[in-house]
């Protein structure tokens, strides 16, 4: 008899090796209490959070929390139903209205997670004889959306406009084409040259989907993302986003100006065959999204934090994922998993939580300590963070 688990033996061995070397399990951290968007208690110790996607610090906003409590009281704990049956409440329509206002777009469709939004839109939009052309560093949810559908999948080198252009020109001119891009790539925190990529995509007659999960609320004048910042948001056919980052709860969405967009509610399986978000979640999301529209000061402070952390880490001698800070994510490149785990643990002991990221999630087999900043990190906290990196880096011989 074959044990179906034997296919995971390599991963089991890798994990065991890491634990046997005496390190704390980097994938088993528990936050015992959460005090604010930037501080939690981990292993009984006050820990600064530098590895959440709480970019705009909305999770403890009093108005957001109050909206959730009120919805719990008025609508109960859950919908127990699909959006197309009994799962659409006033709150679901309200959050879709908030999204339409936020993006200034005609249509918005809310999914239960961002993962499902990509899964649903990508697998439904591109059919058997259509082509999906995607960046090879795309998020797992984009690849899984491709796998769920049956289109022809054409990857191209990360952020390489010429590679995209060449591939588009080799495809049959009459074939349906969906180009899938991300505004911010979450592993290295680098942004895409959307202006150039969208131009070559449109010239080839392709529709364009941009996942702006890691830019919403922060990048662009109105926080609409990298496409807004580069002045090409009107040429994007679908923007995919999430409530689990800047919005500060959970859920996913797609916004679009396409006149036939609403039909997706009937034909998109990851939208139809799952329960809708609980009323408290959509109420917190709607309140948060409306507040994010007027958050220019917070956006400015987050950029300051990002620039200061990037410059400070570089000055300490760390190798970073980008030459310039391009987003709220700053990736510190580690020489190997062992050193990465040691550095991660040393930082945790200092009182700082960052993400340890490793293959296959990372590009080119890299081990990364991924830092994501929050608009509510104070200048003092950024100073504290740099001090912790200096101490942990010297203790683990990552820097001299």
């Amino acid at each position, binding site marked *: 008899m074959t044990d179906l688990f034997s296919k995971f033996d390599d991963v089991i061995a890798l994990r065991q090796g890491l634990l046997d070397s005496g390190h704390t399990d980097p994938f088993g951290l528990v936050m015992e209490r959460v005090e604010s968007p930037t501080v939690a208690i981990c292993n009984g110790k006050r820990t600064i959070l530098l590895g959440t996607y709480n970019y705009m610090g909305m999770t403890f906003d009093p108005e957001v929390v109050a909206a959730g409590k009120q919805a719990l009281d008025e609508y109960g704990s859950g919908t127990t139903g699909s959006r197309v049956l009994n799962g659409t409440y006033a709150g679901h329509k309200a959050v879709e209205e908030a999204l339409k206002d936020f993006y200034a777009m005609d249509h918005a469709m809310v999914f239960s997670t961002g993962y499902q939004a990509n899964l649903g839109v990508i697998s439904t939009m591109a059919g058997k004889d259509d082509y999906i052309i995607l960046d*090879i560093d795309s998020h797992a949810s984009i690849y899984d959306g491709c796998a769920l559908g049956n289109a022809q*999948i*054409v990857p191209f*080198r990360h952020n390489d406009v010429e590679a995209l252009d060449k591939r588009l020109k080799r*495809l049959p001119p009459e074939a349906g084409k969906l180009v899938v891009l991300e505004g911010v790539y979450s592993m290295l925190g680098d942004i895409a040259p959307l202006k150039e990529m969208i131009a070559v995509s449109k010239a080839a007659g392709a529709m364009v989907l941009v996942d702006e999960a890691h830019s919403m609320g922060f990048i662009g004048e109105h926080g609409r993302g990298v496409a807004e910042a580069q002045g090409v948001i009107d040429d994007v056919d679908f923007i995919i986003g999430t409530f689990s980052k800047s919005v500060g709860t959970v859920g996913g969405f797609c916004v679009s100006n396409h006149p036939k967009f609403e039909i997706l509610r009937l034909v998109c399986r990851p939208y139809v065959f799952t329960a809708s978000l609980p009323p408290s979640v959509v109420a917190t999301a709607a309140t948060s999204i409306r507040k994010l529209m007027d958050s220019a000061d917070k956006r400015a402070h987050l950029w300051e934090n990002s620039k200061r952390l990037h410059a400070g880490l570089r000055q300490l001698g760390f190798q970073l994922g980008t030459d310039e800070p391009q987003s709220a994510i700053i990736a510190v490149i580690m020489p190997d998993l062992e050193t990465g785990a040691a550095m991660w643990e040393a930082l945790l002991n200092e009182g700082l939580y960052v993400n340890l990221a490793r*293959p296959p999630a990372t590009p080119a*087999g890299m081990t990364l300590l991924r830092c994501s900043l929050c608009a509510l990190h104070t200048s003092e906290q950024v100073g504290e963070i740099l001090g912790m990196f200096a101490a942990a880096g010297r203790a683990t011989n990552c820097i001299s």
Partner: protein
Amino acid sequence: MSDRQQTSAKVADLIAPFNKKGVAVTEATRFAQDLEWDSLTVLDFVATVEDEFEVIITMNMQAEIETVGQLVDALGRLTA
């Protein structure tokens, strides 16, 4: 040289820089098992082959290509 031989020789040239383990390559060599390429190396190699032959090898087609010989056959069909 026949067209197939030429394609085969060109593929061998393109494999060389990716063949870090110095594995002896024949048409029966398997990319994943014998060359021990991970998925990212495969993507990088495929992009190189695509640009050299000016074709598209979709991920759907890649799933059917396990050996060097199968790649040479597929290129023969794509460039026909």
